[in-house]
């Protein structure tokens, strides 16, 4: 059968099945988003939700405080290599330059110009991936990343993922995020809520089965930006 023939046969069966069916109805209205209480501390809500699923959340007040926190992580985990996504925020915070003094190897944005096959193999050797995000959802402790910033693999292959965002990127709940994403502009948008987990052996929680074992979210105020 031709492609058109296959398509038509498929739809003939569906339409035939529906012919005897009920009346066609309009799509049910989209339930209104729940208004969250004004003055609610979105940062605290986000942190509580993320930590409940094994992630870590910290708010820093300045660039030097951010560097201090990252230095602590680097020492604690013995991190020797870092990959950074293209998020403008990371550059604005001066992280590429600063990290290149702190660790042996930094995969900077330019290395993404490597052929994809080489890029993914070198990334698989990296200890820490640092990305930004589009939004952070307070309700569930979720960060939303989009492939526009080339963070799809940097947030996934290294065993530790650090995501940095500003307070302005914090949003109450998923409904608001989806209304802003209306036309997903890039091929992949990913909602990340905590580290990779599995309960597949004896229902016992195991972290870092395929994705990162550790996930840190760091909120920086706009004022920390130079």
């Amino acid at each position, binding site marked *: 059968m031709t492609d058109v023939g296959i398509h038509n046969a498929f739809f003939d069966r569906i339409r035939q099945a529906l012919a005897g*069916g009920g009346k066609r109805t309009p799509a049910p209205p989209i339930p209104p988003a729940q208004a969250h209480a004004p003055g609610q501390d979105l940062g605290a809500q986000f942190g509580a939700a993320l930590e409940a699923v094994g992630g870590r959340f910290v708010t820093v007040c300045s660039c030097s405080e951010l560097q201090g926190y990252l230095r602590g992580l680097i020492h604690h985990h013995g991190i020797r290599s870092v990959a950074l996504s293209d998020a403008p925020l990371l550059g604005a915070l001066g992280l590429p330059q600063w990290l290149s003094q702190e660790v042996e190897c930094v995969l900077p944005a330019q290395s993404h110009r490597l052929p994809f096959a080489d890029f993914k193999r070198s990334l698989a050797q990296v200890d820490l991936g640092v990305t930004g995000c589009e939004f952070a959802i307070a309700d569930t402790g979720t960060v939303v990343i989009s492939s526009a910033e080339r963070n799809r693999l940097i947030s996934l292959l290294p065993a530790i993922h650090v995501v940095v965002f500003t307070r302005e990127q914090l949003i109450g709940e998923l409904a608001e995020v989806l209304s802003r994403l209306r036309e997903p502009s890039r091929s*992949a948008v990913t909602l990340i809520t905590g580290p990779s987990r599995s309960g597949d052996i004896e229902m016992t929680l195991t972290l870092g089965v*395929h994705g990162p074992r550790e996930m840190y979210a760091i909120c920086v105020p706009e004022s920390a930006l130079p």
Partner: protein
Amino acid sequence: MPVDSAGHGKPGSAHAGRQSSVPSFRASARSALAQPALLRAVSLATSKFVSARQQTVAQTPGFEEAREQAHQIKQHVLRNLDRYLEEFAARVEERGGQVHWAADASDACAYIAAVAAENGARRVVKSKSMVSEEIELNQALESRGLEVTETDLGEYIIQLAGEKPSHLLAPALHKSRSEVGKLFAQELGMAYTDNIEQLAAAARRTLRHKFLDAELGVSGVNFGIAETGTIVILENEGNARLTTSLPRIHVAVMGAEKLIPRLQDLVVFLKLLPRSATGQTMTSYVSLITGAKTHSADEGPEQLHVVILDNGRSRLLADEVQREALFCIRCGACLNICPVYRSAGGHSYGWVYQGPIGALITPQLSGNESASELPFASSLCGACLEVCPVKINIPSLLLDLRSKVAVAHQPPSSRREAMLAAGFSFVMRHPAWYRLLAAVARRLQRLALKDGAMRTSSVPLLSAWTESRDFPAMAPRSFDQIWREELRG
């Protein structure tokens, strides 16, 4: 086609479901009941799932409203399925994806094999997908010389062991850590350990290489969004993200019923699915994939193929009662709560879908004669309806299916049953006959009594009833007798 009352689906027509045999529930359940370790594991796992779900749902405002909304959305989508399929496919193609319409399992498998052949792909990684189990994709690709690796930890264990999943969500819940340890020692050449962390780490290492080498990744689809052509995949491990990001080609296999109209409808379904499945407020990862990559410098696959599968679904769609079974979002809540599933385990259901929803859709999708006893593998207690996130009235659909099976089958004993029923009716209408026969039965039952209940495996007629049910002994004196002798003033 024993349960096909709608008259669609000529035998042998392209959309008739798979025909491979589904083993008898009675036989499989009996063998499961003889494995106490298996039943302990099932009971432990399902109790954990049930209490995690209960806890989270209790803390979720608007959960009941969301169930009702989801029910209405699904109902709407199925009534307008042709329109939404057209819309979804158009959006996928606009974004550089290719859509293939698969009438049945072999069609879907042949298409995926052709995609692999055209691109010279030899190594395939797969994330968890019930529909790929349904079409037996692994066997189909392996028979064409491809290497297929399941990457979900549970599915990987099952694949190494050469078994079938026993639960929609936790496919290896019937395996103990020491069994997994022995399996990994044997198959991965590592030293034996029953340390779960170490076992998971070994799987991570082995599978990382598979991911990096694979040319083709196969995933399932939890929701397809018609308005944007987006594929939504929920998971906790990250293997679905790896499967859909690392290989050059991504093939997503989707049942035709999986569509929802709008991106905003996800709010409702993301509220329901993780909570109903594992008691999580959100899974670790939710991937929204819209088309293939548009910029050559982007990460991700160069090609996206979406295989949309009928495989018996149009037959279910045609039946206005049974259509509701297509609302299912595969959360597994009805399995966990079901007394039959909890006692008999997942393998008893004989195919890829287990528990109450399996009892409902296996006979109808597989179109298989031997699965027609599945609708009877239920106590109709209604617990599945109470937990179903999209409010499928499973007990009532099972009853409907039972009657269709009964009408189609007219069992050979029906004449005898009719005579028994007529006799019963006569006796019940004639008190003297009733008293006489009851007195006789009370004396005769001693021959068949054991431990206070009838053991009538040797008694003709009665054995069909007592084979799988208790038949309590008649009391030494009837109520009528006690009334006459003691109670009446």
